[in-house]
C-alpha cells in the first residue's frame, strides 16, 4: 500500500499521466469528430501507425519537428479522405472500410519504412520535442515537475480538445457536424451538403489521429518501432463511448485511462511486480477499455445516425 502511496505522490507519475494521455487525447478527439458527424472511423489504428511513422521520418529526413507534425497530419488526412470517399458518397460499410484503411495505412508505413531503411535493425533516433519551460509554473516545487514539464505537443493536445468542444458546441459549423450525425436529411433540407460535412469531419478527425500517432515517435519516444501503437486506436474508440461523445468527458476519460496505465507501469517495479506476471499489468488498459464500454452501455447518447450512410435521393 505504501508503494502505491509513494507512486501517487511522485511528481513523475503525474507527469507520466499527461504524457501517456497526449496521443490518446489527439486520437480520441479525432474519432469523436468523425463519429459526431455519423462516421465510425476504424481506420484510427492504422492512421496512428502512419502518423507515427510519417512524422518521425520527415524529421529524420531533415524537416523541423513541427514540419514533421504537419506531414503526419497531412498523411492522416489523406487516409481520412480515402475513408470518407468510400464511406460517405459511396456509403460502403464503415466497418469494412475502416479495417481496410487500418490495414492499408499500417502496411504503407511498414513498406515505406523498409524502403527508406532497408537493412536497419535498430531504427535511428531523432531529437524529439523537449519539455516546454513555462515561466514561473515550471519552477514551482513538485507541481512544476508534475504538471508543467510537458512538451509543446502535449499542450497542443489539450488545445485540440478545447477547440473540438468549442467548435462542436459553439459554432454553426459544429451544429452542422452534430446534425449530420443525428439526421443527415435535416442537414440536406437546410441547404447544406451532408457529403461535404461528413467528408470534412473524417478528414480533420483523421488528421488529429495521425498527430496522436506522431506524438509517440516525436515526443514520447524518439524512434519508430513496429507495433508501437499497439491497440491505442481501439482504446480511443472505447474512450469516445466512455466520454458519451462529449469532448470534455472523453478528455477526462483519456486522463483517467492514462492514470491507470502510468500506475500499472510503476506497479510492475514494486513488490507486486514480483508476484504478478507483467502480462497481467499490460492487460489492464485493454480490460479497462472493455469495462468502460460495459459501464457506458446503458447510456443511449450515441449519435442517432452513426454508421447510417446518406444517399441523396433516398427519402
Amino acid at each position, binding site marked *: 500500500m505504501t508503494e502505491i502511496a509513494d507512486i501517487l505522490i511522485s511528481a513523475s507519475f503525474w507527469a507520466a499521466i499527461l504524457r501517456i494521455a497526449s496521443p490518446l487525447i489527439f486520437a480520441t478527439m479525432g474519432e469523436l469528430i468523425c463519429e459526431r458527424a455519423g462516421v465510425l472511423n*476504424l481506420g484510427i489504428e492504422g492512421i496512428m501507425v502512419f502518423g507515427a511513422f510519417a512524422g518521425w521520418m520527415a524529421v529524420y529526413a531533415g524537416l523541423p519537428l513541427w514540419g514533421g507534425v504537419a506531414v503526419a497530419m497531412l498523411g492522416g488526412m489523406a487516409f481520412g479522405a*480515402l475513408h470518407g470517399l*468510400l464511406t460517405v*458518397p*459511396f*456509403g*460502403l*460499410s464503415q*466497418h*469494412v*472500410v475502416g*479495417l*481496410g*484503411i487500418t*490495414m*492499408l495505412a*499500417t*502496411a*504503407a508505413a*511498414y*513498406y515505406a519504412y*523498409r*524502403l527508406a531503411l*532497408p537493412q536497419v535493425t535498430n531504427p535511428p533516433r531523432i531529437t524529439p520535442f523537449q519539455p516546454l519551460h513555462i515561466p514561473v509554473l515550471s519552477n514551482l516545487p513538485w507541481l512544476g515537475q508534475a504538471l508543467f514539464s510537458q512538451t509543446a505537443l502535449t499542450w497542443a493536445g489539450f488545445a485540440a480538445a478545447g477547440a473540438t468542444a468549442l467548435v462542436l458546441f459553439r459554432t454553426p459549423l459544429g451544429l452542422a457536424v452534430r446534425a449530420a450525425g443525428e439526421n443527415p436529411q435535416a442537414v440536406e433540407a437546410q441547404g447544406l451538403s451532408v457529403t461535404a460535412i461528413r467528408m470534412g469531419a473524417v478528414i480533420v478527425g483523421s488528421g488529429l489521429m495521425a498527430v496522436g500517432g506522431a506524438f509517440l515517435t516525436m515526443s514520447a519516444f524518439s524512434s519508430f518501432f513496429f507495433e508501437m501503437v*499497439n*491497440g491505442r486506436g*481501439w*482504446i480511443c*474508440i*472505447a474512450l469516445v*463511448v466512455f466520454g458519451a461523445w462529449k469532448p470534455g468527458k472523453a478528455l477526462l476519460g483519456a486522463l483517467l485511462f492514462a492514470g491507470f496505465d502510468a500506475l500499472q507501469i510503476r506497479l510492475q517495479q514494486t513488490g507486486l511486480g514480483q508476484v504478478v*506476471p507483467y*502480462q*497481467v499489468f*499490460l*492487460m489492464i488498459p*485493454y*480490460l479497462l*477499455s*472493455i469495462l468502460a*464500454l*460495459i459501464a457506458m*452501455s*446503458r447510456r443511449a447518447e450515441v449519435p442517432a445516425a452513426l454508421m447510417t450512410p446518406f*444517399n*441523396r*435521393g*433516398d427519402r
Partner: protein
Amino acid sequence: MRLEPIAAPSHARTLVPPAIAIAATIAVAGLLAALAGANPLQTFGLIVKGAFGSKFAALETLNRATPLVFTGLAVAVAFRARLWNIGAEAQLYAGALMTVLIGTQLGLPGPLAIPLMALGAVMAGALVLLGPVLLKTRLGVDEVVTTLLLNFVMALFISYLLEGPLKDPMGMGWPKSPSLPRDARLPRIVDGLRLHWGFGLALICAAGVWLIQTRTTLGYEIRAVGANPQAARFAGIPVTRVLVKTALLSGGLAALAGFSEVAGLKGNLTTDLSASFGYTGIVVAMLALLHPMGVVISALFVAGIFVGADSMSRAAQVPTYIADLLLACALLFMVLAILLTRFRVVRG
C-alpha cells in the same frame, strides 16, 4: 452525386467493375515495386513463381492457405449475420492453446487425442467469442471494439503461459510450449508431401458452412438476421439465439485454424504462431463476398501473395510488406467494385 440501384444488372455490369478492381490492384503493385527500384513485371513474375512456381512453392501456399480458410470462414459466417467478429486472432490462439493442453497434458493415444483436441479447440474459440456477443445482445456493447481488444488480452495471456506455467522445459529458454507427441499430430495427406490434413479439414468445413447457409434453418436464420434484424425479429426468428449460435460457429471455426497450425504444422505453441491470420481472414472473407466456397479460392489467392512476396523479396529488393499493402488495396477496391455492380452513380 448519388447512387441509384440497378434492377437487373447486365453481365458487363457485374464483371467490369471487379475486373477494374483487379487491374487497379495490379497497377498499385507495379507502382510499389517501381518505388522500390524494381522492375514491376519481373516482381510480378517472382511473386507468381514464388507462390505457384514449383511443387514446393505450391505446397507452401496450400499450407499457408489452411489457417486462412478457417479464419476466412469464421469471418464470413459472422459477417453474414452482421456480427462483426474482428477477434479471430484471439479465437485462433484459444484453439491453439486448447490443442496443446489436451495434446500434451492428458497423455491420450493419438486417435483419441486428435478429435478431442479439435473439439476442445472449437469450444475454447466459441467461448472467447461468446463473451463479446453476450455483451452485444444483453447490453448493446459494440462487438467490434471488444473483439479487437480481446486480441491483445489473449496475446498477453498466451505470452504469460509460455513464459510461465506452459513453458517448455526443453525449450532452451525460448517462450514456447512443449511439443505434441508424434501420434497426436495431423497426418500428411500424401506421404512425403508437406501438406497435412488440416487443409482437408478446412475444405470439409467450407463445404459444411455452405451446406448450413443454403440448406438449414440455422443458415436461413443467420442470413435473415444479418440482412434485416428488425424484420427477422418481427417474423419470430429468435435473433439473440441466432447470434449466439453464429458466434459459437464463428469462434469455433477460427479456433480450428489454431488447432490445425499446432497439430498439423508447428507441433507446439509460440507467440508468433499466427502471422495475423485472424485479421487476414477479414480480407479473405470480403474478397470471397462472404461465400464459403469462395473463401477457399480467396484464401489460396491471399496465401499465394504472401508466400510469393516472401520469396520475391529475397530475390528483388522489394519489402515483403508489399503483400499487406496489396491485400488492403484489393479489399478496398473490391468492396467499391461490388457496390458498382449493383448501383450506378448518377448526378444529382
